[in-house]
């Protein structure tokens, strides 16, 4: 978009108008990035996520290495990726909250009126928030794994764990973890944009991840069994699992479907798309 276009100055304005600066998507993204990094809560949330991941991964690796040979839980010749993913169930809660707060704090503080006065079309703001959140969460996932690789290094040899990124499954799982966290944070963003209340949206997304999906997994009724594999986290988490884990999950589930890891992740993204799409429609309609 050209920034050279000019408008007719209002009659009688003495001051020469500066160059006209149009609102463009990259500029809205830049603004959302400024907003993201200039609030303490988001910065802290990011740091807490990384610390939780690294801490839990390290503790879990240490615990596994202490287990006697042959005991249940000893991975044998496991992939190092497994050691880097122990903290994901904790990290997903934090990034879900991060996603919620990215949008709900706009409403709780009144900032949204400034935001939408600057970007009255509104949708670029939601898209920019999603983009910033995606990049940050993906980076958080990767950094956590890289740091965890270093902190778990002392245990690799005793556990016989190796890392071979040229292996398709290993690479898929290594990228799968940050991708999964991204999708969870976007779920949080979607619920936040729909409900516009921090408490309500956090309760909903955490309730979904911790309670609803597990209930569906455990209740032995046909309806629950059929639906369970298609719930967002249940489906999306498959991208982080190795083949034995996937097989074990399929054997536990009484349903007839077995989603591939990427299909599962696709199902999760579909949930995200529906949520964000609904939020986008409402965003245009509702009064700020």
């Amino acid at each position, binding site marked *: 978009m050209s*920034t050279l276009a000019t*408008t007719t*100055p*209002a*009659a*009688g*304005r*003495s*001051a020469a*108008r*500066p160059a*006209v*600066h*149009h*609102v*463009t998507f990259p*500029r*809205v993204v*830049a*603004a*959302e990035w*400024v*907003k993201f990094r*200039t*609030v*303490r*809560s988001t910065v802290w949330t990011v740091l807490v996520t990384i610390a939780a991941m690294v801490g839990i991964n390290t503790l879990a690796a240490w615990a596994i290495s202490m287990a006697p040979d042959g005991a249940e839980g000893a991975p044998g010749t496991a992939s190092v990726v497994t050691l880097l993913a122990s903290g994901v169930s904790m990290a997903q809660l934090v990034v879900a909250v991060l996603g919620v707060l990215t949008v709900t*704090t*706009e409403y709780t*503080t*009144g*900032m*949204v*009126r*400034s935001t*939408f*006065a*600057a*970007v*009255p*079309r509104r949708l670029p703001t939601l898209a920019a928030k999603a983009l910033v959140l995606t990049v940050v969460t993906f980076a958080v996932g990767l950094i956590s794994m890289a740091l965890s690789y270093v902190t778990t290094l002392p245990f690799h040899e005793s556990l016989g764990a190796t890392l071979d990124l040229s292996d398709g499954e290993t690479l898929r799982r290594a990228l799968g973890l940050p991708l999964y966290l991204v999708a969870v944070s976007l779920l949080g963003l979607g619920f936040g944009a729909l409900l516009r209340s921090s408490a309500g949206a956090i309760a909903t997304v955490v309730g979904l991840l911790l309670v609803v999906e597990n209930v569906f997994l455990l209740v032995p009724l046909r309806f629950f069994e059929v639906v369970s594999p298609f719930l967002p986290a249940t489906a999306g988490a498959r991208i982080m699992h190795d083949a034995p884990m996937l097989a074990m999950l399929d054997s536990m589930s009484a349903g007839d479907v077995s989603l591939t890891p990427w299909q599962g992740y696709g199902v999760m993204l579909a949930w995200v798309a529906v949520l964000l799409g609904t939020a986008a429609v409402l965003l245009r*309609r509702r*009064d*700020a």
Partner: protein
Amino acid sequence: MIQAQGLTKRYGAKTAVDDMTFTVQPGRVTGFLGPNGAGKSTTMRMVVGLDRPTAGTVLVNGRRYAEHRAPLQEVGALLDAKAVHTGRTAQNHLLAMAATHGIGRRRVDEVIEMTGLGPVARKRVGGFSLGMGQRLGIASAMLGDPATLILDEPVNGLDPEGVLWVRNLVKHLAGQGRTVFLSSHLMSEMAVTADHVVVVGRGRLLADAPVQEIVGRAAGTTVRVRSPQAGPLEELLRRQGLAVTSTERGLLEVTGGSAPAIGDAAAAAGIALHELTPVHVSLEDAYLQLTADDVEYHADPGAAGARRAAADPDSPTRPGATAPTTESALR
């Protein structure tokens, strides 16, 4: 320029803004005056597209606000002093707003300087006083150097120095040919700041006229006359078709005639006059008269009536009023 056409906003059964049509012209300060709950803030939010009108349209500089490609350069709005994330510093708030339009750091520093925010620019907004919040709101409104400014209660919470600053600023901006639309429930502030006023009550437009005209209308032609022969004078004036009221012995308030005409009539009848004063009506009186029936939250109707004693309650030029006011006429 702001053009509202049949602007209406309903929240369920409650109508906040009812079929308002008015135009705010550039080059002067237009006051938006009305009691609390009259629909001023709702109207202003609709102007900048934050609330959707139930019916009607409002255009700024010829287009709907959302259709502008650089909205902050068209309209600067101070809608809510604390439309800011409390955890962010003033400077970062302005940088984020500026980033949406690619406006540089230099302009951000300029508006910080201009609004006197320098000492607190790096402090978080949560700790700001109401006055500092207002200054930040004005700073963000000025970011895009806009042709139109919309300021909702800008002097709220400001100290006297700040009030004076806002007053001079808006006059200066209007002098540059910009459109300035300024709401307040304080008539005294409008009287010294605005050139033109749009008066609303309970969501309806009551008047849209220059300040002088509003005051003139309300003033009617009330003249205070003191005479040792008040009785005969009252009779004389009544015969000429003038309305006369008396609040104390020897003092008459005459409506409908000019001071010279009354003086001449008295001289012709040989009646001595000790005082002959055209009553000056303030914008405040005019405003109270206009909005008397439209105040949403009445504290004490008698108090409002008492202030209007000098004004003509039956003026045929009163726009918008539906029920005649009677308190002052019965005096």
